[in-house]
């Protein structure tokens, strides 16, 4: 049998301190605890106490020891409570006593825990009891903290309030608070620590009340309020960082935000923002912005910034009674460009951080997004006028290149600002129309620098997209191409006519903003030298581009004639018609209107207008009228004189150039725009219906709006017109049962 003659393993007797009764052992332990509490450990042998505990635990007396220890510690704690905390005062001394008590007890708990570590390991852990140190803490919680908690909480909050009122962070106080809060955070029931369950809510609410009480914003100016609130906030943050954990600090920050900033300051936020904007004080604005860390409040600030800029924009005058439309346009536009430029420089300095805008301008930096919103709203409120004005402004800048001899760089600088404005125009179509018209005029009359024009079209392309600029590009191309053709044409001619400087412009008809050619152009008979050269150019051109048809648009052309008058030599520029009439006087001394009509085939009405303009206008009175027995004749006015060498015969209101007066010109522009819009909408609707087959009115309206948004704002009236048209042409049909639905018929 293997069980025989074996070495017996006898555990407890061998290593433990044998022969002690439990009572004797407990006496030793109690003695040790007493000495630990009296901080008199010089005669206390760790070895002895540890081994006593070891023996007890080994003898399975752990539970008894654990309970005895508990009872004894409760006694100790009760004694401390009775003696140290008897003073019921709710003041700083009370806090000090409490903190001292806590630290002392912790110190003792720690040493007792160390002594008991064998019991922790062998008895407490396997039996799921709290380890001795934790058990001690729990006793402290029950015996001291819970019993004193109302006094403690009120003493602590009132002390904190006292320090707040004094406005001075007293390290002596905060260090006591820190100890006490450390205590509250250490002690916990099964759920959460005491600080979280009992103290923090009180702290938060008292803080809230305190700061709500401490400042009355109605008595201060916005700037003063800001300053005061900033100081309070800073003070509280510094104070909190002295005694609270980061989590609670953040909670209090939020409370401060609630009470001070959105509780109080929010009422004056708009005033504050406007104030900062008015002072152009970017530091102040930044400060305001940073104070409001929550997004919704930041958006309020941004809205205030917008409203401020919008206010200024509204003040820029659209019309100044005394001035002409062009001048209005220029002064308004430069006002807008200037405002934009200034605000952009200003806002650029503000760090907006990440902020979500509620519209489509997400990809832009915050400052641009703000300006974009402001100006877009402003322009769309003003209708088509801003678009025309801006185009006119560009026109003005362009012309300055030739007139004032400004550096290209400077002009580009001016234009650069306006390109950013263009992007924000609501009526981009109007802008395009107007721009095209003005560009054509500049190009044909060579009023601007072609290089800048090209650059500008590129900029517009960047801002609006190719869609808007394709025709402008063709116009520029035509002009350049014409120059090349002219060169080639001249080279091809052996006997050039030196005294005639012929500059043809071959224009792509569809791309230029002219209705059609003038009917007179087919019948007019020009002076032979002119018709000759036109004929030879036609011949040259058709030999080069066989399939192209060339048609002369005299109403767009200009003739310059040098002429010696009695008082000097003048270069006079005419419309082709006027020029043709004037040239007649090379061969005739005097002519009646009837004769002029016969010689030129220009309709009588037009002849009358043209001759009148040359004979009545003081600046270009180059013809004189003589009446001979009711027969009115015209001849060259050799006494004509002018201060300028160059004289222009204006194409004044007459039946040829325009059948309508200037006042109606804009109307036409808008009209044609409406028509084109209508066509565009028709096309869009047809596209949508082809895809959908059946669609309700509302759906169709929304979808069409969505698709055309990039070009113009669709108004329901235009939309209805379009629908009506399509119904008439039987592209679509109303549903037989539900009239709000449409069917596709193709």
């Amino acid at each position, binding site marked *: 049998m293997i069980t025989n003659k074996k070495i017996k393993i006898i555990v407890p007797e061998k*290593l433990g301190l044998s022969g002690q009764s439990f009572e004797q052992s407990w006496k030793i332990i109690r003695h040790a605890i007493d000495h630990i509490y009296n901080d008199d450990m010089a005669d206390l042998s*760790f070895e002895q106490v540890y081994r006593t505990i070891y023996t007890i635990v080994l003898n399975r007396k752990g539970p008894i020891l654990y309970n005895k220890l508990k009872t004894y510690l409760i006694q100790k704690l009760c004694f401390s409570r009775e003696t140290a905390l008897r003073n019921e005062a709710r003041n700083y001394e009370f806090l000090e006593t409490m903190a001292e008590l806590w630290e002392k007890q912790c110190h003792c708990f720690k*040493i007792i825990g160390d002594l008991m570590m064998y019991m922790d*390991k062998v008895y407490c852990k396997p039996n*799921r009891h709290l380890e001795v140190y934790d058990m001690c803490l729990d006793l402290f919680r029950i015996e001291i903290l819970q019993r004193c908690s109302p006094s403690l909480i009120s003493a602590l909050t009132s002390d904190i309030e006292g320090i707040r009122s004094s406005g001075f962070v007293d390290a002596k106080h905060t260090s006591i608070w820190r100890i006490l809060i450390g205590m509250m955070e250490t002690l916990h029931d099964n759920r959460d620590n005491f600080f979280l369950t009992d103290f923090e809510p009180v702290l938060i609410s008292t803080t809230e009340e305190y700061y709500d009480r401490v400042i009355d914003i109605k008595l201060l100016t916005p700037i003063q309020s800001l300053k005061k609130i900033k100081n309070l906030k800073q003070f509280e943050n510094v104070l909190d960082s002295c005694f609270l954990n980061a989590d609670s600090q953040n909670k209090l920050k939020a409370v401060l935000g609630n009470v001070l900033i959105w509780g109080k300051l929010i009422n004056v936020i708009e005033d504050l923002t406007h104030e900062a904007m008015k002072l152009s004080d970017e530091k102040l604005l930044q400060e305001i912005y940073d104070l409001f860390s929550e997004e919704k409040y930041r958006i309020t600030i941004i809205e205030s910034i917008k409203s401020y800029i919008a206010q200024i924009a509204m003040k820029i005058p659209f019309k100044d009674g005394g001035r002409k439309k062009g001048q209005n346009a220029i002064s308004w536009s430069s006002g807008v460009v200037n405002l934009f430029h200034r605000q952009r420089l200003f806002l650029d300095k503000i760090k907006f951080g990440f902020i979500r805008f509620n519209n489509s301008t997400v990809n832009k930096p915050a400052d641009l997004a703000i300006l974009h919103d402001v100006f877009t709203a402003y322009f769309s409120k003003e209708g088509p006028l801003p678009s025309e004005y801006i185009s006119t402004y560009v026109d003005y800048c362009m012309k300055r290149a030739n007139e004032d001899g400004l550096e290209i760089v400077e002009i580009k600088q001016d234009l650069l600002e306006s390109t950013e404005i263009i992007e924000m125009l609501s009526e981009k179509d109007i802008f395009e129309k107007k721009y095209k018209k003005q560009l054509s005029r500049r190009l044909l009359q060579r009023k601007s620098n072609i290089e800048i024009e090209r650059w500008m079209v590129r900029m517009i392309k960047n801002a609006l997209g190719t869609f808007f600029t394709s025709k402008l590009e063709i116009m520029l191309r035509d002009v350049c191409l014409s120059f090349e053709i002219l060169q080639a044409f001249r080279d091809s001619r052996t006997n050039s006519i030196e005294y005639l400087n012929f500059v043809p412009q071959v224009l792509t008809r569809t791309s230029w903003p002219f209705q059609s050619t003038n009917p007179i152009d087919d019948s007019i008979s020009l002076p032979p030298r002119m018709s000759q050269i036109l004929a030879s150019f036609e011949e040259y051109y058709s030999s080069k581009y066989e399939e192209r048809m060339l048609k002369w648009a005299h109403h767009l052309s200009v003739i310059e004639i040098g002429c010696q008058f009695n008082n000097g030599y003048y270069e006079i520029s005419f419309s082709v018609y006027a020029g043709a009439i004037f040239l007649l006087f090379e061969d005739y001394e005097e002519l009646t209107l009837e004769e002029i009509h016969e010689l030129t085939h220009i309709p009588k009405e037009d002849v009358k207008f043209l001759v009148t303009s040359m004979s009545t206008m003081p600046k270009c009175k180059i013809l004189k009228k003589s009446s001979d027995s009711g027969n009115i004749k015209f001849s060259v006015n050799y006494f004509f004189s002018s201060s300028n060498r160059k004289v222009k015969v204006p194409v004044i209101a007459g039946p040829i150039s325009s059948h309508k007066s200037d006042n109606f010109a804009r109307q036409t522009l808008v009209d044609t725009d409406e028509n084109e819009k209508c066509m565009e909408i028709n096309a869009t609707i047809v596209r949508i219906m082809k895809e959908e087959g059946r669609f309700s009115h509302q759906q169709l309206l929304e979808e069409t709006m969505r698709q055309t948004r990039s070009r113009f704002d669709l108004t329901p009236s235009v939309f209805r017109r379009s629908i009506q048209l399509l119904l008439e042409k039987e592209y679509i049909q109303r549903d037989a049962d539900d009239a709000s639905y449409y069917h596709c018929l193709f």
Partner: protein
Amino acid sequence: MASMSMDKNFEELCYSCRTGDIDNLDRLISTGVNLNGVDKFDNSPLFLASLCGHEEVVKLLLQRGAVCDRDRFEGARCIYGALNEAIKETLLSYDISKAVDVKQSFATHVSSIYNEESFLSRDISFRAPNGQLFTAHRFLLCARSEVLAEKMTNEWAKIEIVPIEVHSDIFEIFLKFLYLIPILHQIEPGQYEELIKLSSDLSIELLPEFLDKARHIADPTKKSRLMSDYQYKFTEIARNQLLLFVNNCIFSSAVDVAEDEQQTTSLMNCPAYPDIQLSVKNRNGTTRVYPCHLAILNRAKYFKVMFTNNFKEKLTYVKAKDLSGHNNGVATQLTLPNCEFEVAEIILRYLYADSTDISWMYAVDVLLLADILLEDRLKTITSTIITQSKEFIQEHNVFDVLYLSWEIGVERLEQFAAKFIAMHLQELYKDPEIEKAILLSSERISLRQETDTIELVDDIRYYLLRKYSFEPDDVELFQNQDDLEYLKEVGYLEYRKDMEMLESILTDLELDV
């Protein structure tokens, strides 16, 4: 299948460690891959991540339980293979913090006493030419270098501050080296010459050899490999040196005091340069006093805690140190619980030199002593020795072993006992002790709460299956079989016999399990 997918996961894990794919790594770790395994080139995931310089990966691995044990070759390799200093720091910090909790490993502890800034005494100082002062422990220097030991018995015996001629930076590296702090990678090219000279003068084993090799290697990979190889060797050498020191200086200086005598001689001037006297009383009533060092005893939690608070022991120690410097006066006297001197010496060898050369004869006593000293690692090691020793179980009653395992809470031993009982059930069947053991085990239920089974019975059943290499499914299968020849052949009949014995014991005990 399971193991195959595990292998695949491990491969993927290693790959993620190379590429630094921390998310995938995180996922793989959650599948339960062994983080401390090695691939076919013997590289551990931690080594790969360190080498490839993925600090975050290294951190994650360490957090999830990858071990960087500097006392093992693999750990040292990680540290020296680390691509940058930050990773090295991370590894070292984990090595130390983990080690304090669970391992108290040797090199880490020796390193830690270099920086220990508490009241612990250092009894010798060196003043470098630039005035910088280095303090050290005589006993450690003595153990680490014969030349230094020699000097201390002669010219340095009475001096507390020794002036040195070596540059302070060189001396610092050297001193750290003696304390096993891994500084090999910090040696600058310009320092080799002087270090070689210093270490040769003091006849430091292998260090000159290493330095000579290292300074000619430029390839960082080769160099780090060399360093890890040597650091491991250095640690081994240091262990041997300390073991020699324990045997030659501590044990040979110990004095015996008979039961009724007073100790007359102080050990404070013995060649061990102690600051503590540790006395042990054996069964015959003789007391033996060993000259020891608190810096080393601290490795055991028992001593560490003893000196954390201001108990008598600490006050005496501090007073003795303040009063008398290093070599006279009374020393603090600590006692180990009564035990044979051999047992005390095993403990000391373990604490000083990580020696786990424990004879089975003393294993039980060592276990009990380790339990008092709260030295869990020693308990585990000793239990392993018990379970692997053939003689032990022949000389001991298996039930005693079982009770012991319950007493000191070593599960390994509990399993060992249960297994032994299962294997020898037919012999032990008649032993009344088995019934007692089962009863005791059933009483322990209240302590465990989770299950209402008897752990010992469960364990025995489990090992009975193992005894016949059965799976639980097999038994079900066999129950429906009636081919007796076959059942006999596979061992089911024997198994059934064992099981019936166990059931009858339980029936006797009227236990319903």
